[in-house]
């Protein structure tokens, strides 16, 4: 039982990392990784939203859609669930931490369109996860996302002051680095 869940976590964090292996949620990965501080804020917000959205979509699917035989409505329902969770998070963050709200700025609502969030919700259904499994899977996906986002942001902060050939500066070297990181994460395949 415990082993199952830890394997689920490790698999979501490292082996099937959502950003570097499944290539979901690349927009915030490239967009918010310029500063380590912002990346950490984004990671925290995404972790919260992803875990919550994963669990909520699972509940919606099993308690509402499945009994009514409306499985085909899962995508649109999940989008609704995610939008509400993001909006709710935004309200809470705005109330509790104005600084974090200011730092996250436009990115907080953008979690809505983070494909990793919808990806996790749909994969949960595909893989027949129960409620607890979805919770862990969502949390693992979020941890994996945070891990690579923070690593990538730290690297980009160094790249910003490194001596890079002019044509490679900025986004170009970022893409190259992301590709190399993805290669490195392939090394985890077969771990579980």
């Amino acid at each position: 039982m415990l082993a199952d869940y830890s394997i689920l976590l490790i698999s979501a964090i490292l082996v099937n990392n959502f950003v570097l292996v499944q290539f979901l949620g690349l927009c915030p990965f490239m967009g918010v990784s310029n500063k380590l501080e912002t990346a950490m804020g984004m990671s925290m917000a995404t972790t919260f939203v992803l875990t919550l959205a994963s669990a909520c979509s699972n509940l919606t699917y099993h308690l509402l859609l499945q009994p009514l035989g409306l499985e085909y409505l899962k995508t649109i329902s999940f989008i609704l669930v995610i939008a509400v969770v993001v909006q709710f998070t935004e309200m809470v963050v705005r109330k509790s931490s104005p600084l974090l709200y200011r730092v996250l700025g436009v990115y907080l609502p953008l979690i809505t369109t983070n494909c990793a969030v919808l990806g996790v919700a749909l994969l949960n259904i595909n893989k027949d996860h129960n409620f607890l499994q979805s919770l862990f899977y969502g949390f693992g996906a979020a941890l994996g996302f945070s891990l690579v986002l923070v690593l990538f942001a730290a690297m980009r902060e160094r790249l910003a002051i490194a001596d890079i050939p002019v044509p490679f500066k900025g986004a170009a070297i970022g893409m190259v680095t992301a590709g190399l990181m993805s290669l490195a994460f392939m090394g985890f395949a077969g771990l579980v």
Partner: protein
Amino acid sequence: MAEFITQYPLLTALLALVSLGAVFGAILGFASERFKTEGNPIVEQINEILPQTQCGQCGHPGCRPYAEAIANGEAINKCPPGGEAGIQALADLLDVEVIPLDEEHGEQSVKKVAFIREAECIGCTKCLVACPVDAILGAAKQMHTIIASECTGCDLCVEPCPVDCIDMIPAQQEGLQTWHWQLPDPVSLEVDIIATDAPREEAA
């Protein structure tokens, strides 16, 4: 129930989505009431960084109105008393570029404190009215004096004084940023900092 679902699948789908939306709408509506924010919290943080001199050099009637203006997108470089350090702190808070101080609104100088040459004060109370922070003590036809710890060094009392008996002198400050060589002892240079018509004792 099951019969209804098999009979009207489209209606069921419609009802399910609408009720899902209604429930979520209710949750969000409750949350927006529960987590209501009073005004813009960023204004408080900006206001804390501003030096609270209430000097009006930025073109606003005080520090708080300027904080509100910054929150609405005004430039952060209009506060001479805050100086470079203030602009740096604001830029960090708002995540914007550091820009040099706007010379139009005055130059940055060391923090000053007003000093009334009490022998010359005629007790007109004009400076009391001008002081934005009530740091001047006095009454009509009584000598005035400055409460140094309250004075923000805004210069606003210098202008209205009819006998020009208010000086701005550098405030005693600690820290590397503001450290400077001590001014020479005026007595040793035989310079009288109090301008007065009375004959000087040692000269007499």
